């Protein structure tokens, strides 16, 4: 109970601070904050799959791209309404995730990871090669940020990054809240059971494959949401969103921040984006610098940054011996 209240207070404080950010910092930092939140949405959903259910996917970039292109096509051909566009993007991502997931969830571990990698790269090359439709390596360009409106009742402009920031913040808060609820729910417990012991879960009466598919689609929805929002941010959708290097980002940030907590992937996202920005100032080969930092964190911080921090703050009496 106490821990719950403390976490709720911390979440409220972070939300307040995030609301204040656009008033305190410059344009570029706002842009970075948006990027952190987008990666955070991506990773917090992805961690329902990796941290909660124990499935390692290397193909979630495909669903990110599905969200991005979904919003892009919707925006270019149907309606510029960003909320409808995001809904369309998420829907396309979920559809693709159900399709890919259906073929992948009968396998586990390395086979599952390799299958998702293969499907992810298939999506990438489809986007890359279908030039007439997707714009190929140029991507889908010229997607506008029309004002948010709700059946013409009201209109909120999101044209500037400062305005757009609040839309992203709203979706970010919603995503984190949803992920939190899912982790604490009976469904979340069933997922944890599957992670801990899939065979026993079946003997507990849990249809393991269906649960895996459900959480796969769910994490695909988060990826699609992040992807569609990035398209609005950058006003284009790019094939590299589906590339496996992008699929690896939520894996990296989850490891960085810690797999076992809700905050882990979020903290990891902040570290990832900030560090990339800083290292890029000094060297072209930012991956090299990042690799070293990642190495230190994985070897030095067991359970990621959040895992280590919560270990430090825990009372010594609560710590287990041996």
């Amino acid at each position, binding site marked *: 109970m106490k821990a719950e209240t403390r976490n709720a207070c911390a979440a409220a404080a972070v939300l307040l601070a995030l609301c204040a950010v656009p008033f305190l910092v410059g344009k570029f930092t706002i842009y970075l904050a948006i990027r952190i939140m987008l990666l955070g949405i991506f990773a917090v959903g992805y961690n329902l799959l990796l941290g909660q259910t124990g499935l390692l996917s290397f193909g979630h970039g495909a669903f990110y791209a599905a969200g991005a292109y979904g919003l892009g096509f919707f925006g270019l051909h149907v309606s510029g309404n960003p909320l409808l566009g995001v809904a369309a993007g998420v829907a396309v991502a979920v559809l693709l995730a159900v399709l890919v997931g259906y073929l992948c969830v009968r396998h586990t571990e390395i086979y599952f990871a390799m299958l998702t990698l293969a499907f992810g790269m298939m999506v990438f090359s489809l986007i890359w090669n279908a030039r007439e439709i997707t714009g190929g390596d140029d991507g889908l360009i010229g997607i506008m940020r029309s004002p948010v409106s709700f059946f013409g009742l009201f209109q909120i402009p999101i044209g500037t990054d400062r305005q757009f920031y609040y839309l992203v913040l709203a979706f970010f808060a919603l995503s984190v809240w949803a992920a939190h609820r899912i982790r*604490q729910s009976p469904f979340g417990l069933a997922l944890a059971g599957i992670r801990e012991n899939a065979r026993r879960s079946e003997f*507990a009466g849990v*249809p393991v494959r269906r649960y895996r598919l459900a959480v796969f689609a769910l994490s695909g929805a988060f990826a699609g949401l992040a992807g569609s929002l990035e398209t609005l941010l950058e006003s284009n959708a790019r094939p590299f969103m589906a590339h496996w290097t992008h699929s690896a980002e939520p894996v990296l940030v989850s490891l960085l921040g810690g797999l076992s907590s809700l905050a882990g992937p979020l903290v990891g996202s902040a570290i990832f984006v900030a560090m990339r920005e800083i290292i890029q100032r000094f060297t072209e080969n930012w991956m090299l610098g990042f690799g070293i930092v990642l190495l230190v964190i994985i070897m030095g911080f067991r359970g990621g940054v959040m895992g280590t921090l919560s270990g430090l703050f825990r009372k010594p009496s609560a710590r287990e011996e041996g």
Partner: protein
Amino acid sequence: MGEPLLTTEKLSNHFGMVCTARDLDLRIERGVLTSIIGPNGAGKSTLINLLTGHLPVQAGKIRFQGREITRLPIHKRVRLGICRSFQIVNVFPELTVAQNVMIPVLARTGRSWRAFRGLSRETAALGETEAFLEKVGLLKERDTPATALSHGDLRLLEVGVALAAAPTLLFLDEPTAGMNPVERVRLLDNIRELAREGRTTFVVVEHDMDVVFSLSERIIVLHRGEILCDGTPESVRADARVREVYLGDDVSDLFRYREE
């Protein structure tokens, strides 16, 4: 003869050249506490694995309460009411004792699909979970992670997780293996009491002959994938072929005290 709960028809299984089940025609009756015994390699584990869906059936049929379940996946058999515990502890290690038991409770009642409702609000499931923990004597350990339990408590949890699926037919695979005498007596008393309640029919695979003869109303002796003998403890004890198998093949088995 009582009401048949589960029947098999010419159930067979081979691992390469080794036959672990040969044309088994089995009939498990409701409410009769049955034990399956046999020397090592007799096919006891294979039989449980076939009946619960752990192993695919190569030949033959399985019926449960009149319904054919030969090809049904594990979780569907569990929902119909067939469950098992494992010889080697097979629980959810990083979860607490209460969470371990709650998973089958929620799954059975179809509540595990609820994704937006806090676990703490599932009061009915929590109550049921506590009742099961009380039954196996683990209520005081409810918030302990399974990995931190003693071996005996883990065995109790193993049985508790199986019981929480509220099965009609429950297979216990060496439930007392590695337990100390006190824990063993407690668990056996538990099983007897639950069997008397009548909701669950127990089928126990055991090595410990004291356990088998004190617990069972019916004993099935397997040998090389076949039923060698089937009857009351007295008739099995008196059976010449059973003596021969145990004395001839593996005399230590009959009175062996399991240590793990």
